[in-house]
């Protein structure tokens, strides 16, 4: 018994099975990420003034990752086109580039961007203590200019043991430039290029701190949605890469030798998935990095 229309198209629909299948799957994926993005909108609209952070992510690295992902979307189309022209060698190379792009993207995310956040520290100051840390917050000036207040002091934590040990009464922080030069108008807007913490060191008393954490998902609604969405997106990238590796390995050459159209269809379907993953990133990038 054979399932009809696995490779050739059904005349009245003009489609083969997997093509419908993948579009339906993508519709479902749209709803999944749609749910997460609407949660982002919901939480952001609900946030109190000053609670939604800006400019904490590394924009150049994010831009680079965007470019890498778009490039891989192009190469996967080229790989598919090469198969259609029955040029397996070219297909092999384009596929390799696609896989490498996906791996670089994941590498940058997991080995650089995320760990950089995990090492960063932020302390949300209690309302009654905001005045005490005014030099590092610059709220007087911000209030005059109609900007959202700053309620958090962030930077590099010199004594991480303070997070656990109740006997340590202070956090020792090398300030981020935003807090180091709180009244500098240049700090009103997020920086495009990444700026490391300064060597200006400040001690913050635990008594004045409402909540202090590293930049983990638990830090704020912003980081919660950032890590959740980029994590789920990363899983999709990983899934795509694994499938591409399978199609690039000699196993799939046998499929090609039996029927090149079969492999071309497979690549087309996975390519559609890859474009979708790409598209999700196109939404992630402005929402978290730029806005």
């Amino acid at each position: 018994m054979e399932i009809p229309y696995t490779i050739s198209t059904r005349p009245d629909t003009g489609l083969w099975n997997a093509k419908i299948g993948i579009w339906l799957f993508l519709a479902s994926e749209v709803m999944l990420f749609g749910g997460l993005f609407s949660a982002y909108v919901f939480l952001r609209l609900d946030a109190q003034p000053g609670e939604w952070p800006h400019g904490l992510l590394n924009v150049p690295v994010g831009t680079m990752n965007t470019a890498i992902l778009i490039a891989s979307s192009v190469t996967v189309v080229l790989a598919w086109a090469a198969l259609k022209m029955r040029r397996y060698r070219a297909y092999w190379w384009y596929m390799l580039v696609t896989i490498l792009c996906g791996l670089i993207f994941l590498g940058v995310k997991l080995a650089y961007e995320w760990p950089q956040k995990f090492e960063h520290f932020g302390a949300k100051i209690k309302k009654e203590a905001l005045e005490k840390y005014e030099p590092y917050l610059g709220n007087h000036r911000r209030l005059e200019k109609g900007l959202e207040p700053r309620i958090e002091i962030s930077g590099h934590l010199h004594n991480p043991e303070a997070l656990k040990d109740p006997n340590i009464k202070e956090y020792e922080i090398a300030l981020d430039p935003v807090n180091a030069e709180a009244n500098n108008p240049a700090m009103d807007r997020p920086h495009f290029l990444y700026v490391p913490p300064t060597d200006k060191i400040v001690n913050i008393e635990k008594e004045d701190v409402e909540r202090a954490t590293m930049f983990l998902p638990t830090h704020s609604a912003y980081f919660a949605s950032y890590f959740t969405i980029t994590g789920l997106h990363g899983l999709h990238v990983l899934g795509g890469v694994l499938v591409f590796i399978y199609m690039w390995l000699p196993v799939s050459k046998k499929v090609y030798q039996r029927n090149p159209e079969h492999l071309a269809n497979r690549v087309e379907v996975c390519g559609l998935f890859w474009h979708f993953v790409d598209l999700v990133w196109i939404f992630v990038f402005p929402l978290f990095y730029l806005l």
Partner: protein
Amino acid sequence: MDASTSVETHHDPDHHGANHEHHELGWWRRYIFSTDHKVIGIQYGLCGLIFLFFGFNLMMLMRWQLAYPGQPVPGIGWIFAGIQTFLDNHQAAAGQFDYWVWLRGLISPFTKGVMTPDGYNSLGAMHGTIMIFLGVVPVAFAAFGNFVVPLQIGAPDMTFPKVNAASFWAFGVGGVIMLVSFFVPGGAAKGGWTSYTPLSDIADKGPAFHPFFNGQTLWLLGFIFLITSSLLGAVNFITTIIQLRAKGLTWMRLPFFVWAQFVTAFLLLLAFPPLEAAIVMQLMDRLADTSFFLPSGLIVNGAQANISGGGSPLLWQHLFWFLGHPEVYVLILPAFGIVAEILANNSRKPLWGYKSLVFSVLVIGFLSFVVWAHHMWLTGMGTTVSAFFQTTTLLISIPSVIILSAFFISLWGGSIRFTVPMLWATAFLPMFGIGGLTGIPLAFNSADLYLHDTYYIIAHFHYIVAPGTIFGLFAGVYYWFPKATGRKMNDFWGKVHFWPSLICMNVIFLPMFLQGMLGMHRRWYDGGQGWGVGAEHVWGLTGFQWNQPISWAAWIMGLAQIPFIINFFWSIKHGEKVNDNPWEATTLEWTAPSPPPHGNFVTTPVAYRGPYEYSLPGSDKDFTMQNEPVEPTERTRRKPAPEPVLA
């Protein structure tokens, strides 16, 4: 089957030719890890029916607590009390691993045989979850859909047989996780089947609980598998219906059951992912201490919770009900489909208003996505939002009424045979009617303010799902059983199953409307005894006293399922042997042998006519199957008479 996606020639990529031989599969591949849609359908069906019975048992325990609050539950309560004595004598020493930890989890809903408030919540949450996601959906959508849809459209199998198997096994893993959650410390999830936050975010969390092996987290993990399962199933169903219809089987010749499954698949495809998003976020809340659903300044056990805040409990409700409402139609549409088939078959006349039925089901599918917030009138969304959802909710009753009316009119003038499937199908109509009509007061937010979260709601949706959908499912089991086995289920025992079930269903749920209107809250674990509400007598009993007849009816209904269970398994081997079309039906599944072989049809079916050509004028029998060619004489016969010319 292994060859289903591989291809050997360039010229004929899809077909190997008629005499293609496939090697015999072993027992495991044929019956357990099968990719055949019929086997998968039966697997889903058996698992689903077992889960339905299990979920029903949880409810029977709860009914004891409601009728006789604070008294040890007979039977299982005594056993658990014994186990508790045993465990108290076998405490693990400090620092030593407690080998009986799983047993302590299992008996945790009871103390000395008496159900605890937490235990009551746990059983209630799992009753809802199991009945809906592990019982009705697998049977209504996955089992009947898998078994019947490819046969009805004349297809050899589903488009993606391996994906189909993956769907079943994802369901299996999800089901096992849900069952395992009964054995963890603290017992299974207690947050209700809706798992409202912030309660479910903080339940079973803390130093006393394992981060993964606690009821609520396992509930969430189980759901991820169940959602994956229905996603894979839905993609497969839609593609199959679009691509594998037999030659000549145009859209308007599809049996109504196929249409119902088609729309259901779309609901599952698009409504489940937002819940998956919500579940991922709740998992993050529980495992990574985020606060997606936790508001700022939340107080837990009298102390400020160590959370970032900034989340929103309402967000969970929106995402949950975005699934939750389409889910209601996932439960009912397959039952509509089954009932439609059986009504047409047993009234021996075409289904009335086939096209309006199809369009109604499509409209329901669309509207079901824009009514979700009518579950949330009490959350303070504001009057504008409420007005919008009130309007859409009333709109969706229109196609539902069209469908029910068309079913009733289909009976008109028919020569009705009251076979066992027909009994269930006809009972479905008034039962669903009661359920639907009692929903209208709930659609108005002014009326709902009073009725919300009372037993009125319980009665309303159970009338739709229990004597509604589940009656439809029983109808389907009796109807398609001969196709799956080649034998019929016993008629007498079918009736012994039917009549007590029908009576008990109504004794259970009708009084609940009264209790609800007396103000009895659905989550009171003592049946309202301690609340002084419902002290008034209605029909001779107070609201609390009504619990006893209801509970007895529930237990009798439990007994009434025993004839079904015996009949079901006995008939597989010993039922009356029947031909391929015992009900003299018209749709394509009855042209296949019973049970259908691998690949389903002996000759590739071709459809020449609509699905319900019963009692065709001038035909020598009262049913004309879809694969019977239209004779030239028939064409002239069916042409309407020319209009008389008026002088």
